């Protein structure tokens, strides 16, 4: 069996902030390898550093020391322009509070990453429709986020994350604002996406039971450090 190259490799990654005279180590010397196609759940209590780690993988933040390599690209050495391209082309993001733009319709929200990637207008409509079909919201295409339930809004956010066909999907507490049934539905959707079309997923959550049911592997963080790292089931 040929082993695939890792999708993400973190090497001795630290991220520290200075607040007045004190130094806060949000992420402290974390090394972690995530193979392509894996669904990894990052678990931990509030302030454990899991969201900071996710932001480092997303290229929204840079490590103070160490390196983050995603699909062969060392993010710590990239220019801000190259990082923006990485966020456009390689990763898709889903947030706890959905972060849909309220004055745009679902179609326009999902189209936004395609605009940023300068995809031709003729191709955009097809790709938006495909993405919304994938999450089962093609009939709500002209609605605004405020007209949808929380679950539907999160599915729209998933469609927006998928529309540029990224290799990595990053989800920050995707079920945090949803009831348990809807949260499960969202994780089922993520699991399906992981298998078809095949995607690496890193999900930050504090719901261990859900993580154990849906993720391939759990990485547990505490005080900025990686405490344990093993198969979910």
């Amino acid at each position, binding site marked *: 069996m040929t082993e695939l190259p890792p999708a993400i490799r973190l090497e001795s990654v630290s991220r520290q902030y200075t607040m007045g005279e004190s130094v806060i180590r949000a992420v402290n010397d974390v090394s972690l390898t995530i193979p392509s196609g894996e669904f990894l759940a990052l678990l931990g209590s509030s302030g454990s550093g899991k969201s900071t780690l996710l932001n480092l993988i*997303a290229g*929204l933040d840079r490590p103070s020391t160490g390196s983050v390599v995603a699909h062969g690209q060392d993010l710590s050495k990239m220019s801000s322009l190259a990082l923006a391209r990485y*966020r456009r082309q390689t990763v898709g*993001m889903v*947030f706890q509070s959905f*972060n849909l733009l309220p004055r745009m319709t679902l179609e326009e929200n999902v189209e936004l990453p395609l*605009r*940023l990637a300068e995809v031709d207008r003729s191709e955009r409509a097809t790709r938006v429709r495909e993405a919304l079909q994938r999450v089962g919201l093609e009939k709500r295409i002209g609605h605004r986020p405020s007209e949808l339930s929380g679950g539907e809004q999160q599915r729209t956010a998933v469609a*927006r994350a998928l529309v540029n066909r990224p290799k990595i999907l990053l989800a920050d507490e995707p079920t945090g604002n949803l009831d348990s049934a809807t949260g499960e539905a969202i994780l089922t959707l993520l699991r399906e996406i992981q298998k078809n079309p095949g995607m690496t997923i890193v999900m930050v959550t504090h719901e261990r039971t859900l993580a154990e049911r849906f993720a391939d592997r759990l990485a547990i963080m505490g005080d900025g450090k990686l405490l344990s790292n093993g198969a979910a089931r």
Partner: protein
Amino acid sequence: MKLRDLSDLAFRNLREAVLRNSLTTLGVAVGVASLVAMLSLGVGLQQLATSRLAKSGLFDSIFVTPKTNLRGPGAGPPATRTPDAKARLLDADARAEISRMPNVVEVYPQIRFFTEVRYDGKPYATMVAGMPESSKVSGAFDGMQGHFFSSANADEAILQAEFAKELNPQTSSLIGKDLILRYAERQSLGAQGGDAAGSGGFSVVPKEKHFVIIGVVETEPASGFGGFGNGRLLIPLTIAETLRAAQVNDLRDILRGSSSDKPSYSSLTVRVKSPSLVEATEAKLKDLGFSAFSLLDISKTLRGFFKVLDILLVIFSSVALAVATLGIVNTLVMAVLERRREIGVLKALGAADRDVKQLFFVEAAVLGLVGGIVGTVIGWLIGRTIAFGTNVYLHSQNLSSVDISSVPWWLVLASILFAVGVSLAAGLYPASRAAHLDPVQALRYE
């Protein structure tokens, strides 16, 4: 991001805060309007002055006089004086020669003489002036009662209003009436032989000629520099020349010993194709042996004055635009604060700093463009209103109307571009602030 998508997003954002953005745009519009209104008046006044002066023929004309000066210092009686080798008599030959010079449009003498006019059986003493055909477009006859001479050879007369009132206070009733001009015709003695032959002397014979009054003009077209003295009775120049009326300079001709039967002129007005040709033609005329001078220098001074006026107007009206610029900065800074989370989302989805910066620049440019267009229209309206008010006043004073406001295409274009430029400058700080927002912080912002 492509420009079309940027503009699309920018318009959407501007529509979101429609009241605030409309007020900001209105601020820009007021600034631009004050600029356009002030400049339209500056430009209008300049055009009015320039066209009046151009029509007056003062700036495309050269005034030629003979170089000989009988009263020159150290000059003895003409017989004993050594004549200037280059000095020439300004006679018909000289006139013909000047007419043949390149770029010369017209050469005409200044003919004016005292006369007695008989109208309705009563005598009136006045000054007659011969008007060249070209004076029709000088603007002096604009708004006259009646019309200009039907031809250069018509026995027609135009009266100056003051003189017309002497004849009949109801000046309009004069038109179509007949008047008799009594004048002294110059008849050369030299041509008749005898003792006086070759002396250039002449006799003066009283003559009469009938003219039909065809118009009354308010202004004094024949007055002022290069004109014809206070001409109160204007007749076609060609007719004035054929009258061979005795003029003041005839006496000088005798003293000078001119034996020519051809008339000589105290001065000739030479009109060239454009003011730019005046200088060269003036030099050539001097080379021919005449005295020549023009008013070109005054025109340059006038242009300089209007430049300074325009600069002052721009400085004063720019104050309003400066205030409007602060309004744009304020609006966009507010927008950056309000849209922090949205900027964070855009960055998380892959927007580069450059994309965010451009988005705010497009928004600033749209505010400037709309403000510039609206402001130009308002400024034009203000200019028209002031011009209208001025004309109402002028009419109430029985004066002819003038156009003191002008918005040429370059002013429209320059004001709109200026408004956009100023708005982009105002957008520099907010756009840079938006572009450098930390996406992690921005996404956390509630």
